[in-house]
């Protein structure tokens, strides 16, 4: 009796598989106990456990003689589409939803349906901070090349700085599918860690006097936005983005489609469906399917640690970019129009976490300083900025690689 055929999982088990199961357990712990992005980290954590038990039927099934393959060669054979290896459910979900980029784009429809651009329309000037805070993406692309990654891989790593899960998955899938697992884990983990990452960077870059700058503008906050403007905005943005950078159209277009469903006023059921059922359903599938890339062979490598580190640097440079842009702008602004540099840090796409963090920091410095409205406006601008940045990365990197 061949023991290896009787208990194939046990005989193929390695220390790397154990490490990945522990990684999965850690993600589940962070999701439940610390409530760090539980909607993604819990499915990813469980999926990591599911795919790191060798011969998991969630990944593949061998039709015929199992003894012809080791666990490693079976996975290679699945990739090559060899006869005799059938994809498991997670592999099918990956091929259908991730490789085709359908899942991230459906999530974008849901996100678009959740976004209210009203605060941004009242302070459109804050869009510029949504641009400045994408600096971390490009800085990390440069740093990644110094670490030995090629330009495509560096771009996929740098996009972690977009602080936007679907954008990160979309770009990583196009440029470096092998790195999709660590990039997704890094992106979603750091989005949840914004309250820990941003404050030290902001404190290091700003003075107490700068942090106490007031930005409240009662008239701006009460400005009414016409329904026509709210409806036209997603259409106009889509057309402009498509003409200038067609590569960005999938990302921008689906986001704006979701927003149009919300703002048109005649599709309330679809809007609610997108915000709830669609978002929840696709999130479940996306999380557990991303985990199918978190196999020990792909994940337990020095590359993964470097990606996790570079992802953190991306978020730090995002904060740096937004804050420094605000400080630079203040050199030219009259006193009553100065921008609180902390609001610049809200230009990342982690909505509404970043806005809440900055508002709380402002309150700590001065209880009479209410930064929530400008922070939210900037945060919304950051959501547009991150999508535009993703589109530009998709358009530019192939030109210079």
């Amino acid at each position, binding site marked *: 009796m061949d023991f290896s055929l009787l208990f194939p999982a046990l005989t193929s088990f390695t220390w790397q598989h154990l490490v990945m199961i522990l990684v999965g357990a850690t993600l589940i712990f962070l999701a439940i106990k610390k409530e760090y992005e539980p909607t993604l980290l819990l499915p990813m954590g469980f999926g990591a456990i599911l795919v790191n038990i060798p011969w998991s039927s969630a990944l593949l099934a061998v039709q015929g003689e199992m003894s012809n393959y080791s666990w490693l060669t079976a996975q290679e054979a699945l990739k090559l589409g060899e006869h005799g290896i059938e994809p498991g459910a997670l592999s099918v979900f990956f091929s259908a939803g991730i490789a085709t980029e359908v899942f991230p784009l459906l999530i974008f429809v849901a996100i678009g349906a959740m976004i209210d651009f009203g605060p941004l329309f009242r302070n459109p000037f804050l869009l510029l901070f949504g641009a400045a805070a994408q600096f971390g993406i490009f800085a990390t692309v440069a740093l990644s090349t110094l670490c030995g990654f*090629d330009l495509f891989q560096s771009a996929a790593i740098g996009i972690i700085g977009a602080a936007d899960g679907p954008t990160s998955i979309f770009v990583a899938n196009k440029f470096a599918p092998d790195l999709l697992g660590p990039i997704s884990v890094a992106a979603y983990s750091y989005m949840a860690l914004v309250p820990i990452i941003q404050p030290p960077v902001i404190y290091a870059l700003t003075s107490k006097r700068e942090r106490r700058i007031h930005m409240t503008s009662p008239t701006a906050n009460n400005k009414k936005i016409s329904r026509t403007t709210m409806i036209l905005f997603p259409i106009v943005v889509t057309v402009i983005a498509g003409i200038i950078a067609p590569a960005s159209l999938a990302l921008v277009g689906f986001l704006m489609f979701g927003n149009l469903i919300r703002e048109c006023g005649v599709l309330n059921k679809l809007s609610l469906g997108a915000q709830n059922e669609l978002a929840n359903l696709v999130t479940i599938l996306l999380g557990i399917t991303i985990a199918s890339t978190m196999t020990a062979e792909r994940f337990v490598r020095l590359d993964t640690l470097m990606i996790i580190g570079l992802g953190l640097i991306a978020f730090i440079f995002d904060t740096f970019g937004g804050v420094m842009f605000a400080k630079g702008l203040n050199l030219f602004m009259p006193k009553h129009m100065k921008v609180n540099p902390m609001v610049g840090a809200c230009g990342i796409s982690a909505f509404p976490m970043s806005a809440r963090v900055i508002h709380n920091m402002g309150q700590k410095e001065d209880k009479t300083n209410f930064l929530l409205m400008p922070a939210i406006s900037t945060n919304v601008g950051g959501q547009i900025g991150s999508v535009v940045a993703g589109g530009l990365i998709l358009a530019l990197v192939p030109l210079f690689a």
Partner: protein
Amino acid sequence: MTTQHNQTAPVSQNATHSCCKHDSIQPIDSAVCQQHQQQKTATTQVPSGMKKPVRTEAENLSSSFTVMGYGMLGIFIFMAIFFLAIKGMMKAFPEK
């Protein structure tokens, strides 16, 4: 740290090759043609539809700065256009 890897393509029993050492097409068989080893296919892990040439680190760094320059400029241009579009729409369609 490119993902370039060498993949050994398994050679089928029925594969043939034209060999200068022999007069006619012969099946690849190490016993018959010891001059030829199993075919090695060097492949690079490429994004779908995109060629990934091998470049030095300095070239990649230089390209990344170019991407940074165009990218940041591009984002600011986009945002400036959106800013003008918002201003224009709010002027054209004021709330009644």
